[in-house]
């Protein structure tokens, strides 16, 4: 009995930033198969995981989402070689629960474990160890791509390398990834030997990064973006290595402790509240250096402890602005940007600085490049926030930098083109003609 397999026009929040509700049809997939021919050609498709992209790169307004959250079966796990093959909707949370007790860890991980493997590859996500191991695309061995013409393409560095490169960081536009095979990294214990160093200024961050990148696998810096002008870029520099002491065991993380059940009716994170919070958080650490063992959960995923923390920003939602600018001559533009943000007073609690290493990206549209990246949350205050972004865009553009599509909800087509120019022409050859996204239409039309 043929069944109509799509539900019409559900209006809802589709992305993490909660900036607007987007209306799209959804097809919930339970098996890694989909008959594109059974659907008329007027609708475009976009694979959708669990909606942790911040802007509209995971939205397909007025069209159809292929919801992959139920493609969550493991396919094979080689415990000796540390190779895991799993369906594309498997989350990093699931992966960690499976592999950590067996002495393996993700090769690299973003700041949340609540993303799907398919989403991680489609955005070529990076982590605190980018300077050592690059982004996740470097550790993907293979995946299968289902195209809208029904063709299944096995992609790896050896087989169909051009499809492989287009799909890593390809924002889900080259087809539906059905499964992914990932090379894991071995660990002796699941604890992290971590150090937190209080920094006074952006310059100190640069020095510390330079020094730490040799001896620490993971480095990142939380910054107080509301700090006074003389302390631009002050923050807490965190660095760590996987602990080599077997005695620490291979314990797995717990479920989130608390949950934000409802969207706040207003934005409780007002300017004075945030400023006070950031100041307290910064000064809470009295001594310059604090060392100790941490769980991987608190080191990599501090925000995962609060379920639905995005609801904290209230009804209007929030933006995240993340860019990278080349390392050479990064100081002036970075200080200019930090100065503009500090002067505007629009920043928020979450601000992260990181130095990317010199790695060759596997993906055509991969975001990371050698340089300094800054990611910052901004409560949505309408036009005033957008005006600030436009000022920041100018600095990023002049410095030869680019923005991260996974975080973006508003960059102009010009800015996108200038950031990804070298690969765009090549990428378009591999984009599936029946796939599209709200983001893609916004930056290319």
């Amino acid at each position, binding site marked *: 009995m043929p069944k109509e397999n799509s539900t019409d026009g559900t209006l809802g929040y589709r992305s993490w930033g909660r900036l607007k509700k987007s209306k799209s049809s959804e097809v919930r997939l*339970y098996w890694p198969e989909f008959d594109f021919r059974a659907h008329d050609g007027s609708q475009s498709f976009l694979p959708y995981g669990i909606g942790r992209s911040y802007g509209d790169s995971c939205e397909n307004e007025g069209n159809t989402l292929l919801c992959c959250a139920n493609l969550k*079966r493991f396919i094979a796990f080689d415990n000796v070689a540390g190779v895991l093959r799993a369906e594309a909707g498997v989350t990093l949370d699931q992966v960690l629960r499976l592999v950590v007790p067996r002495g393996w860890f993700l090769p690299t991980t973003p700041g949340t474990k609540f993303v799907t493997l398919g989403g991680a590859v489609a955005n070529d996500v990076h982590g605190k160890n980018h300077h050592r191991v690059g982004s996740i695309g470097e550790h993907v061995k293979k995946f299968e791509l289902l195209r809208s013409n029904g063709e299944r393409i096995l992609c790896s560095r050896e087989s169909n390398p051009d499809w492989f490169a287009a799909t890593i960081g390809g924002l889900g536009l080259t087809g539906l990834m059905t499964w992914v095979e990932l090379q894991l990294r071995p660990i002796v214990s699941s604890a992290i030997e971590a150090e937190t160093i209080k920094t006074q200024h952006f310059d100190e961050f640069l020095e510390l990064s330079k020094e730490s990148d040799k001896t620490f696998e993971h480095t990142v810096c939380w910054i107080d973006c509301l700090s006074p002008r003389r302390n631009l870029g002050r923050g807490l520099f965190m660095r760590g290595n996987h602990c080599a002491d077997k005695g620490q065991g291979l314990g797995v993380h717990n479920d989130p402790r608390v949950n934000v059940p409802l969207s706040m009716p207003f934005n409780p994170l007002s300017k004075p509240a945030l400023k006070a919070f950031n100041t307290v958080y910064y000064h809470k650490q009295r001594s310059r250096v604090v060392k100790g063992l941490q769980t991987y959960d608190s080191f990599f995923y501090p925000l995962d402890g609060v379920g639905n923390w995005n609801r904290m920003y209230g009804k209007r939602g929030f933006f995240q602005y993340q860019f990278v600018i080349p390392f050479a001559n990064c100081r002036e533009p970075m200080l200019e940007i930090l100065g503009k943000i500090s002067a505007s007073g629009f920043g928020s609690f979450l601000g992260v600085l990181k130095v990317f290493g010199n790695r060759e990206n596997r993906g055509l549209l991969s975001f990371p490049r050698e340089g300094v990246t800054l990611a910052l949350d901004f409560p949505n205050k309408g036009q005033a926030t957008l005006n600030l972004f436009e000022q920041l865009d100018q600095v990023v553009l002049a410095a030869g930098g680019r923005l991260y599509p996974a975080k973006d909800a508003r960059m102009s087509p010009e800015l996108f083109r200038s950031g990804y120019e070298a690969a765009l022409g090549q990428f378009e050859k591999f984009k599936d003609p029946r796939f599209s996204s709200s983001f893609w239409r916004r930056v290319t039309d």
Partner: protein
Amino acid sequence: MGPIVIFGATSTLAQAIAERYASADCSLILVGRSREKLAAVANHLACLNSKVSIETISADFENLTALREVVERVFAKPEAPSMGIICHGVLLSNAECLSDEKAFMENAMVNFTSTAYLAEKLGTALANKAGGTVVVVTSVAGDRGRQSNFCYGATKAAVSAYLDGLRASLADKKVSVLEVKPGVMDTAMTAHLPHSPLMASPEKVAGDIIKGINRGKRRIYTPWFWKIIMTGLKMLPDAVWAKVKF
């Protein structure tokens, strides 16, 4: 404890149940229609726990003889099953059933005939060994026939009545019968329905079922609030019920 045999093992709910039992070191026998999907489920469970034995058997749920043979086969093993869970089913709309005789037959065959037949065969086989539990997934749709899906609901109501009698007949034979009445769940069977806040996750329902099994319950609603909803709906006068269009 002997292995657990699950019928309709590739259903979304059955996968969630199997995941829980495999993680708890229980051996499983998975019976389903598609060999390919059974293999996918078995591979997943083997990744979760490489120590447990997972066997797969493909069967046609419209062939009672074949189903009986499956039961005979699994109970002929040295270690007989200790529990049978019946999860298979098909959700055909009233429109489909009433306009197509084949669909009408399929609805009754899969949702009632094969389910009821299997439940008795499993219960008797367990009684002949060391006893155990038969778990059958029905639906809140069986509590009162709705205008939009009474063909489906009626098969579930029939299974409920059948299980009441079966439970009584096995009461002194160390076999307990658990009827599970889930509300609407987010599964492959309901993929064509719009997402609603009442939709429960299969993981939540699987957890409730395992709790029900461990506590020796006879009948459970899951999530629990369906018991209240259905009690209310059952009390509506017929004249009012006729106005309820969903």
